[in-house]
């Protein structure tokens, strides 16, 4: 008996349960639907017009009550089942392995689960490992059996109670519709849950970081050596981030704004119809492509330019750093990338300025450019500022261009041809590869992410608020 029980656990530990359950749930859904419908017809003595709702809705109601609870249990299992099994296995392992630290322990259990997934795997010769593997399989099987039984019980209960409710006067349709509405609401809630997840995960990991490194030394420190786990002063990163964002805005703001003005005030509809999509192409190019462009094409030009400046007779020797990756290269390319953000947002804003304002200006003899400069732009100013703020927030959060073309050195220098590093570059550098979630090094990435999130959030909130006010003003 004991042996058979063990075999059953093992078999379950190997089964592709997810697909099986999916099939079972689908079948259960169909069966309960038809059961509900048939019962509705029976309740109505074959005269469906006597029923409050169509028989189909009775069927949907029963199916919903059957699948819903079971699906909830299975989703919970899918999310937490594995970690529960691993935690249980970890607690049963000998002390010396548990002392390894969370990263190595995790890798050890990874190896166990890989070994367990191979059905025909031969013994590895390591008695402890083999025992752990078979225990893992058993635990997995046990957890699956519990999950399946719980899901089946929930489905059965739901089926039973749903059927008891069916009657001639039962408002099946409105109950089904309430269910649908609830599901729609849940979907809308996922967006909120995402935000909560972001804030919570960043906040808690950042707090863990700040329990090791003081907030003050993080925000005001000027030395950054996270890779060695020594210094966590983020000022050079903030400097690099804003420097590159500033350079990007130097490119994007004039080009974006002027092209938006030209497109909305001067261009013929045909010209606009051709050029606007071309500008928007710039927004559709993946950032990794911009990064490659910056690294391969722009950075060498910037370097050559810096060397040329250094070679000028009246320039002190070595004025510019002329690094192979530079803040300027990253800034220029990032500026190109955000041109369409600035231009299409300001285009919207400029178009929203009522035509009557322009007509008034023309009527007193203003030229087009005078109208734009002295009437349209002042009226559109809040919206334009909002557009620029959104673009800045975009530039601060941009990752791939700076990872590829800005460099890794945390330094503070006004020289745009030097390599600078940014918040996002450091997050990538700290979290790429195998990471241990307990080290200050990894946690510092979350602290940086938290700062990044807060800063961009403030920019976005202000910008969105301004845009909304502005829209209300002219609508």
């Amino acid at each position: 008996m004991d042996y058979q029980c063990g075999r059953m656990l093992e078999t379950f530990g190997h089964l592709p349960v997810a697909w099986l359950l999916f099939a079972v749930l689908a079948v259960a859904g169909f069966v309960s639907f038809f059961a509900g419908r048939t019962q509705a017809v029976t309740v109505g003595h074959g005269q469906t017009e006597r029923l409050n709702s169509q028989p189909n809705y009775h069927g949907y109601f029963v199916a919903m009550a059957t699948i819903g609870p079971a699906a909830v249990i299975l989703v919970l299992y899918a999310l937490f089942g594995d970690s529960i099994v691993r935690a249980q296995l970890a607690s049963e392992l000998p002390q010396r392995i548990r002392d390894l630290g969370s990263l190595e322990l995790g890798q050890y259990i990874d190896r166990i689960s890989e070994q367990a997934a191979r059905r025909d795997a031969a013994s590895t010769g390591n008695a402890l490992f083999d025992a752990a593997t078979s225990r893992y399989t058993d635990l997995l099987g046990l957890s699956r059996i519990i999950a399946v039984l719980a899901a089946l019980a929930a489905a059965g209960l739901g089926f039973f109670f749903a059927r008891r409710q069916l009657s001639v006067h039962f408002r099946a349709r409105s109950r089904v519709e309430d269910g649908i509405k609830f599901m729609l609401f849940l979907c809308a809630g996922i967006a909120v849950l995402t935000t909560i997840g972001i804030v919570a995960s960043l906040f808690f990991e950042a707090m863990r970081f700040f329990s090791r490194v003081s907030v003050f030394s993080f925000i005001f420190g000027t030395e950054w050596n996270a890779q060695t786990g020594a210094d966590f002063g983020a000022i050079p990163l903030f400097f690099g981030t804003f420097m590159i964002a500033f350079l990007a805005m130097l490119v994007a703001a004039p080009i974006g704004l002027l092209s938006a003005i030209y497109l909305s005030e001067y261009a013929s509809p045909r010209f606009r119809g051709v050029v606007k999509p071309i500008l928007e192409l710039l927004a559709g190019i993946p950032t990794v492509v911009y990064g490659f462009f910056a690294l391969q094409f722009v950075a060498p030009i910037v370097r050559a330019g810096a060397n040329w400046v250094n070679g000028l007779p009246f320039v002190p020797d070595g004025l510019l750093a002329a690094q192979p990756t530079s803040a300027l290269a990253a800034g220029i390319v990032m500026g190109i990338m955000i041109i369409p953000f600035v231009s299409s947002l300001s285009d919207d804003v400029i178009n929203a300025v009522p035509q009557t304002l322009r007509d008034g200006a023309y009527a007193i003899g203003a030229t087009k450019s005078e109208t734009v400069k002295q009437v349209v732009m002042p009226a559109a100013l809040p919206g334009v500022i909002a557009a620029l703020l959104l673009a800045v927030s975009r530039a601060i959060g941009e990752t791939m261009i700076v990872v590829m073309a800005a460099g890794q050195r945390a330094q503070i220098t006004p020289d745009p041809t030097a390599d600078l590093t940014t918040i996002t570059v450091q997050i990538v550098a700290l979290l790429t590869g195998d990471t241990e979630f307990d080290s200050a090094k990894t946690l510092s990435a979350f602290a940086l992410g938290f700062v990044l999130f807060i800063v961009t959030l403030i920019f976005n909130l202000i910008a969105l608020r301004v845009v909304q006010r502005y829209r209300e003003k002219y609508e």
Partner: protein
Amino acid sequence: MNSPAPSPSEKGSFGSAAAMKRLKQRHRAEMRFKLYGQLAIGIAIVALVTLLISIFGQASSAFSRNVLTFDVRLDAEQVDPSGERDPEAIARNVSGFNLLLQDNLAEDFLPGETDRARLRELYGMFTRLAVLPIARKTAENPEIIGTGQEFRVALADDIDLYLKGGVSERKSLKLGEIQDVTGTLDDGIDVTFADMKAVEDLRSALETFRERSEGDNQPAALIQLGETWFRLQDIDGRTASLTYLAGASTMPAAGTNASTLVLEQSEENRTVSDRQIAWTMLLKEDGRVKSVFNTSLFSHSDSTYPELAGTAAAVVGSLWTMLVTALLAIPVGIFAAVYLEEFATKNRMTDLIEVNINNLAAVPSIVFGLLGAAVFINFLGLPRSVPLVGGLVLGLLVLPTVIIASRAALKAVPPSIRDAALGVGASQTQAVFHHVVPLAAPGILTGSIIGMARALGETAPLLLIGMVAFVAEVPDGPTDESTVLPVLIYKWSTGAERAWEPQTAAAIIVLLVFLVLMNLIAIILRRRFERRW
């Protein structure tokens, strides 16, 4: 408008000289302003065109690849030493196949050579792993063992790059006939050229390269006499002293036609040696080295050797990731949009959700990567580097985009449709799902595809959940370790060897093709099904 108030004498006279001058100034300002606008658009378009040209220019060389043809008998001893014809053992026997081809090459170029360094130089013409496709093909058809077969092997990346014009600046010259030959192949020969002008050309070519280069670089000249290649040691008047490099080991006869290849970089400053260049040229004359369309770019998975690396695994990984993303983002996004647009009553909860969605759309993508690392990997214990987690992260990332696009599409359906449905007795749910959503479907679909295109190009969040792992196998499912196309591009761009640059650009083009296709579908859908009310 900023002009000073007109003085009394000019009052009322729009035709006065001062007024005309002012008008002219104002018109010039107008022209200037217009020009700035055109200039801005011009700069943006030039930037886009430069970007595309630089990438296509880089990539063009990666779409062809030089291969080396072998005509060998598959010796059973070497290919299948166990003699069991076990397909797996044959496919794994890379070193056996490698030896076979190396011996074949050595027989042709270095017969009886014992100098290991020299042999290694020759074996450097292709990389060890390049024989893997041959091994796999043999494993599939074991009956070809023992027969003569023709195989193609990718040339080593440096030599491929050399043939495509990289590695070193160079110039080919004809030197005309030689008159007189003295010396031996082993100790070096002295050759007198008939044509003084050709020799002058050679000298001036060497001189130009020498002037151009900095440091201790000396340009090199390789000289071909018939079937044999020599290195130029010294040239004095019309007489040049040469050392033997490669090719037929017979003394060239007087009257043989000579030609030369002048290289800007000295041998030490190059990744390809003089001898390798000579062998390559000989093979090329034989027709054994040929340029073919680079199919391995699409059929191979990632490799540490640029000439063997391809995008297949990354493309499949991207597809699995996109599948998960689509399954999460599209239904949830549409349902959320339907709820907000059709069912939600205006209250604080709804306002909160709205503000939240707008903000979420502007959150930097890397923050979603941090979310994935903290929640999916650390908290829920899902595996790293798998499309499932990548897809979930990207799904959450594009969810706001899909919601916003779907809401716009739903908003565009006129209220009369809803009113008519409600008027004939449909419930609100019926009105929405039977009438409004089908009419908004093209717009919703377009928005969803654009959202998916954004997800396809996204890199940063995936770096944080470990999708940068080296993946040499095409993933079988969403829980297999894999990488995606943009991450592959990032990884290749960090490769040290020069050959990675065109390879990266080619991978970018593969990515761009997918993006263009998706956007085209979106545009066609919009054109075909969009209704204006």
